[in-house]
């Protein structure tokens, strides 16, 4: 082959692998990026390291009966061996074990315990997420500036509010507007119902505490058919995948929308090892992919690149994308990439029992609970720590499970367990974690993963501010349940390690100054203007609300900005 012929073939191959945009990661934010960019007419390549879980027919366990599971939900000793990190907590179960990443394929190093729940499917954790969907408030975007913590958010609530409207309307969030400054209202589908005890407790909290309310959870489950998707069937088996499309997931919502445009190419089993930097243009020209199965290395090219691999994988990708211009990782002039890792701390609160409502019960399995929005450090309330927390929880009548700890066995015992037990209610606090520079993700080049890439070292802990906050999270919970008339109120602290909240964020924060942040206010890399990061990495602070809705809103806004910049010839 002549040099000219070989060059020609290379150019043809490059053309074949060229798109307008590449999106790395197909979870909640990546799915949104694919939808928005394709709907704006861009040819998009969507990459995910996981296998292609197909909507509906891919959800093999969705309609199984409890007795169809050999271990009734438990994982095996062998699975604990292959999933040493995942198996430490509940999300990894017999009914969805295929959705999770094999820890042994890319083990990570914990300087301190960090629970990292990695999916291994197209759709990422949008399939297994908890679906609680809350807006950040004006107070949250102002918090860092007011407290002199880390850097100021470059965005205020007013700028993002229309994008919350936009993503809520498409995703379908059910909930109740409450008119609260600290938890803005939204574009909600009808709320789910509270049960009798929850209604009583909500009324008594309102009577007894100024500035505190209990509302039904705002959840990305449809309470009526919405945009061609079916409404919730109240099976509460969401984490297996929903054939009704009744909760927001990539598969149910954003992927079909992106596919409909004819502009989307989806490539599963694609481990993105590097973003390729072009020193001529000062921009990224594409990404290098390792096929997860064949280990073939392929390069793809595009005008713009969205990184949505989740906060730790995205940091890994940036840190592994080194060049003469960026010896410390792509776009890492500030040295902030991988730092400021945050999660929510939780697993602390109170439980109580109710003697009321013995003649009341409920029907259906509500895939949702109640929410008590933040009330600490608001207005005149001043605590010895910064920021605050909200509560999630719910009431129910005890089931047969109570029998394990109770004394007894035999015929009468069995018959008693066939009836519902006492009403109990529990609430658990979800607290804000401050951004600490020293909470960080770094590369471990000594230990390589299955694909020959450096593994991740995580050094992260909750500190004094979180510990002080946890005292209130525990005591306030007990105080409210007592005031609500519950009996036998007990507090608990089940311990909370970073990562357990599965809200990892902050590893490529946005800010107002390229010297101290990685992204500008449009999620655009200061130093590499055609790279956008809209997964949890961009979060400048954590607030205490579940963050996914915020990722959706910032993703939609960043896509709008990126395409308008492209049209202006700026990218």
């Amino acid at each position, binding site marked *: 082959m002549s040099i000219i012929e070989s060059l020609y073939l290379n150019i043809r191959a490059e053309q074949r692998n060229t798109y307008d945009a590449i999106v790395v990661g197909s979870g909640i934010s990546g799915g949104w990026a694919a939808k928005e960019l394709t709907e704006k007419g861009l040819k998009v390549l969507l990459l995910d390291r996981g296998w292609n879980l197909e909507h509906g027919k891919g959800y093999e366990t969705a309609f199984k009966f*409890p007795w169809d599971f050999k271990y009734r939900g438990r994982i095996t000793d062998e699975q604990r061996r292959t999933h040493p990190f995942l198996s430490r907590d509940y999300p990894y179960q017999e009914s969805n074990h295929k959705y999770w990443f094999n820890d042994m394929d890319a083990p990570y190093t914990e300087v301190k315990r960090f629970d990292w729940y990695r999916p291994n499917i197209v759709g990422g954790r949008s399939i297994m997420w908890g679906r609680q969907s809350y807006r950040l408030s004006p107070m949250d975007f102002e918090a860092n500036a007011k407290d002199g913590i880390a850097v100021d958010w470059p965005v205020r609530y007013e700028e993002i509010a229309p994008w919350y409207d936009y993503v809520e309307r498409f995703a379908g969030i059910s909930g109740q507007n409450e008119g609260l400054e600290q938890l803005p209202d939204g574009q909600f589908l009808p709320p789910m119902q509270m*049960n009798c005890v929850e209604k009583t407790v909500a009324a008594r909290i309102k009577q007894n505490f100024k500035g505190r309310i209990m509302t039904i959870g705002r959840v990305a489950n449809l309470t009526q058919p919405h945009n061609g998707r079916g409404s919730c069937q109240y099976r509460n088996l969401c984490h297996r995948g929903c054939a009704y499309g009744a909760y927001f997931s990539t598969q149910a919502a954003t992927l079909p929308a992106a596919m409909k445009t004819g502009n989307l190419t989806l490539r599963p089993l694609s481990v993105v090892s590097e973003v390729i930097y072009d020193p001529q243009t000062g921009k990224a020209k594409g990404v290098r992919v390792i096929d997860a199965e064949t280990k073939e290395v392929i390069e793809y090219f595009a005008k713009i690149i969205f990184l949505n691999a989740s906060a730790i994988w995205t940091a890994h990708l940036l840190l592994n994308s080194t060049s003469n211009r960026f010896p410390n990782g792509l776009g890492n002039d500030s040295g902030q990439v991988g730092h400021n890792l945050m999660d929510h701390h939780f697993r602390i609160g109170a439980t109580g029992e109710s003697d009321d409502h013995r003649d009341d*019960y409920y*029907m259906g399995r509500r895939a949702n609970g109640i929410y008590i929005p933040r009330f600490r450090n608001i207005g005149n309330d001043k605590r010895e720590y910064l920021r605050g927390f909200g509560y999630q929880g719910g009431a129910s009548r005890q089931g*047969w*499970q109570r029998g*394990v700890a109770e004394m007894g066995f035999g015929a009468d015992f069995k018959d008693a367990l066939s009836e519902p037990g006492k009403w109990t209610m529990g609430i658990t606090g979800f607290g804000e974690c401050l951004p600490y520079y020293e909470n960080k993700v770094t590369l471990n080049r000594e230990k390589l993963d299955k694909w020959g890439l450096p593994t991740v070292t995580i050094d992260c802990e909750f500190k004094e501010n979180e510990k002080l906050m946890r005292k209130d999270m525990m005591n306030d919970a007990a*105080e409210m349940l007592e005031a609500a008339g519950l009996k036998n109120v007990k507090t608990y602290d089940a311990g909370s390690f970073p990562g357990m909240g599965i809200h990892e964020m902050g590893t490529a924060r946005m800010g107002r100054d390229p010297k101290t942040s990685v992204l500008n206010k449009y999620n655009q890399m200061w130093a590499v203007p055609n790279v956008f990061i809209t997964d949890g990495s961009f979060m400048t602070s954590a607030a205490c609300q579940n963050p996914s809705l915020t990722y959706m809103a910032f993703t939609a806004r960043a896509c709008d900005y990126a395409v308008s910049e492209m049209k202006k010839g700026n990218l």
Partner: protein
Amino acid sequence: MMNRRDAIQRVAIMMGGVLTVPSLAMALENYQASGTSAFNAEQMRLVAEIADTIIPRTKTPGAKDAKVQQFISDVVSDCYSESDRKMFMDGLNGLQENCRRRFGKGFETLTPAQRIEALKGLEEQAIASRNNSASHQANLWFDTEKMNPQFWFMIKELTLVGYFTSEAGATQALRYQHVPGKYEGCIPYKKGDKAWAT
């Protein structure tokens, strides 16, 4: 003076629906699971009889009807750690020894009343050891020198989980709705109505 909030009892409780027995740091011996099941045929029959004493057939099917022994065998063989499995097997042996000593025969050949007496003896030990009351433990007839009395909570938990999540247990002892289709937060309950299976 103690304020109202300080007066609230503060104790750690376990989260989640089903309690699991903490695995004790027991010395690992060279225990080997026999083939695919940790149980031989005799142990399988024994486990079935224990489970059926915990959840007997009444107006609704019992543990044996629901083949709970198979579930227990699967979990003990495949899900338990080596040390938990040893604790379980030692517990089975210990129960048999106690039955032979007190009644002159193994659990599976006892009368229904004797079976109840045997499991009550074990339960009292389990609760005394959970509450850490050594003096009380010493006064009980059931001898747990060669076993951990927490075995009781292991087999009881496995029996309840296995039974109430079985087809017989979920649909006959309880009410099971595969696709509820709606959620109603407040509906009337009258004594005798069965609990939801899940």
